[in-house]
């Protein structure tokens, strides 16, 4: 087990993931244009296409390899104002799309909690958002894209043409080839505003009941307090939102003004500060029910307002954990996870819980599946953090759930292969020149039996 603090005078690698753990040396090769030549002509050795680096662990890292940096491939190709179908290069970010689309009365079909991700990355991780129960994953709204292979082969993929490559590439973690351009089906809006309705809850049962009674709301998500115990255990705020139906001015968002310029010392985020933050967050809403008309920016991207918020965690970075547990016995599993966190003494700054709906993901390796999903982040406190993650992974396995590669830096090959039994089928579509540190870890041969070192 490697220790994150075993670092000499820091020379930051050329590219870091959002969690800033692990830090792995690699060569960054910016792609300014859609390559006209085979990927193998661009650089020798193993390669990996990467975008904004907003995945947390190592799906966007390749130790000692070449990272094909796509963010300069940011040109729009076509837009049909009648249907809302946008065609763009894969390095276009969701923020770019919003700047373009909102003034024209269109919005993203699916958005994660940050708009600073590329279209290519959104497809490669088949991202999901607060509307998973009504819209499914991002990949469902990508009718077509082009895949460029290391041998120069160009494959235009859709649900009907090259459908096997389509399925392998959506959620394929960038390993099947370079996505050069894609179509994104936008959805219409008449206002920037979101009709918001928040409800305070205490306990997982109440959360599940609220989820069931709120299925007609387009967006639902909950913040949950993972620190408090006793009568406040698993308290939270259930948030619903719908695009406002009353037309209002569709201006463009302004750039964020705040940026966290320096790393805070790691100890700033400790049990007490996190507890205080969680209490503040809970009491920000005074009454049990709150209704308001709010702008989409704070509703979808509360953290994007502060650039580089990951520096809150100090230089050692942070670990993310996101699992989905099937509804059957899922509540019990979530309770076990919350209890494992409280007993570890670690505190999750922001914990988010949501139910995924029945809509099937188009990707072979897509993460979302029907059930309850929980996302947590932890500061890295050496073995304590790793042990906790190991325990959470174990609970996830026991409950027949799975973990999200885009938010992982630690899952073992055995765990991954249990979560994604179709991984060998997927491996047939890998581009021989592409790899990632994540993939090298989780596709390693496994010994029979043991799911890691567990002490539950």
């Amino acid at each position, binding site marked *: 087990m490697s220790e994150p603090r075993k670092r000499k005078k820091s020379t930051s690698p050329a590219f870091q993931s959002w969690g800033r753990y692990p830090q792995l040396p690699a060569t960054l090769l*910016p792609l*300014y*244009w859609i390559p006209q030549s085979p990927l193998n002509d661009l650089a020798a050795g193993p390669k990996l296409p990467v975008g904004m680096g907003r995945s947390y662990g190592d799906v966007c890292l390749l130790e000692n390899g070449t990272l094909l940096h796509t963010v300069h491939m940011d*040109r*729009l190709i076509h837009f049909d104002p009648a249907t809302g179908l946008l065609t763009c*290069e894969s390095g276009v970010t969701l923020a770019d799309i919003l700047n373009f689309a909102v*003034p*024209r009365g269109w919005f993203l079909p699916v958005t994660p909690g940050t708009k600073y991700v590329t279209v290519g990355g959104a497809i490669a991780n088949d991202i999901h958002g607060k509307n998973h129960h009504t819209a499914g994953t991002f990949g469902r709204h990508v009718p077509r894209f082009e895949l460029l292979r290391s041998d120069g082969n160009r494959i235009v993929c859709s649900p009907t043409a090259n459908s096997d490559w389509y399925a392998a590439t959506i959620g394929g973690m960038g390993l099947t080839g370079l996505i050069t351009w894609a179509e994104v089906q936008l959805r219409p809006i008449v206002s920037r505003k979101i009709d918001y309705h928040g409800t305070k809850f205490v306990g997982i049962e109440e959360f599940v009941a609220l989820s069931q009674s709120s299925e007609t709301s387009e967006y639902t998500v909950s913040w949950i307090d993972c620190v408090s115990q006793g009568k406040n255990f698993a308290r939270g705020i259930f948030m619903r939102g719908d695009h406002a139906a009353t037309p209002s001015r569709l201006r463009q968002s302004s750039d964020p003004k705040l940026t966290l310029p320096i790393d805070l010392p790691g100890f700033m985020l400790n049990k007490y500060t996190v507890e205080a933050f969680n209490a503040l967050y809970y009491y920000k809403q005074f009454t049990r029910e709150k209704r308001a008309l709010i702008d989409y920016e704070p509703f979808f991207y509360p953290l994007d307002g502060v650039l580089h918020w990951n520096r809150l965690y100090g230089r050692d970075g942070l670990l993310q954990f996101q699992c989905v547990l099937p509804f059957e016995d899922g509540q019990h599993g979530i309770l076990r996870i919350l209890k494992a966190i409280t007993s570890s003494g670690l505190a999750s700054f922001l914990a988010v819980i949501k139910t995924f709906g029945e809509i099937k993901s188009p990707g072979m390796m897509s993460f979302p599946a029907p059930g309850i999903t929980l996302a947590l982040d932890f500061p890295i406190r050496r073995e304590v953090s790793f042990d906790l993650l190991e325990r959470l992974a174990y609970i996830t396995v026991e409950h027949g759930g799975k973990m999200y590669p885009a938010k992982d830096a630690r899952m073992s090959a055995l765990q991954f292969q249990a979560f994604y039994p179709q991984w060998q089928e997927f491996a047939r579509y890998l581009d021989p020149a592409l790899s990632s540190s994540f993939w090298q870890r989780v596709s390693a041969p496994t010994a029979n039996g043991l799911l890691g070192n567990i002490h539950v």
Partner: protein
Amino acid sequence: MYKPYRRPTRIVVLGATSSIAMAFSRLLIAPNAQLSDTHFFLVARNPVKLESVARDLLTRGAASVVIEAVDLDDTAAHPALLQAATNSLGQIDLALIAHGVLGDQTEAQANYAATAEILTTNLLSPISLITWLANYFEAQNDGTLAVISSVAGDRGRKSNYVYGASKGALNIFLDGVRNRIDRAGVQVLTIRPGFVATPMTAHIPQGPLFATPQKVAQGILKAMQRRKDVAYVPGFWALIMAVIRNIPEGIFKNLDL
């Protein structure tokens, strides 16, 4: 001569596939999606790249984009090219000259032919274009001529003096042109970017002094709106270069810059 800023809508971009030119062109498109009144005439060498830039601008709301793939080193072709641009746009409100090469200093030191190539692309080609455009704008009594130079033109340094000389000479040429046609109501804007993260500098390790092309593009637009003559972008380079320019030569010649 002071004139209030009017948003240009008929624009010629020379070196239109450069990162700074692409970012700047996008800024010129009306932010109001319902208003589509920006017309572009784009010139660059590579037709495939040019086509993708044209599509980008059209998709983002440009009213029309005409592209012309030529090598701007061919100065003899400039008058016909610029006449074609004028015919296509009706008239020119803004011309941006954005093409250039960094060149290889080591090679240029050893070999005059390499130096001549840099001077052709970075100096003679722009001078040929500026000559035509200055006369055009002067006759029109209106317009903006914006040229991307570099902070490297402020002082010769051993690491980069061939590129620096091309930009330094360009600066002086532009000063003279401004002195001549500003009084006709023409803005002559010398843009001096510092380090910008573009293909030109992709091989250099990027430090905190590097700016994005988007940031530089915003700086250029602001300088146009304020009707500046010379604009360092980002602005802090004005300070850095003031220091660099004022180091006595006796000391400077012994520095490793």
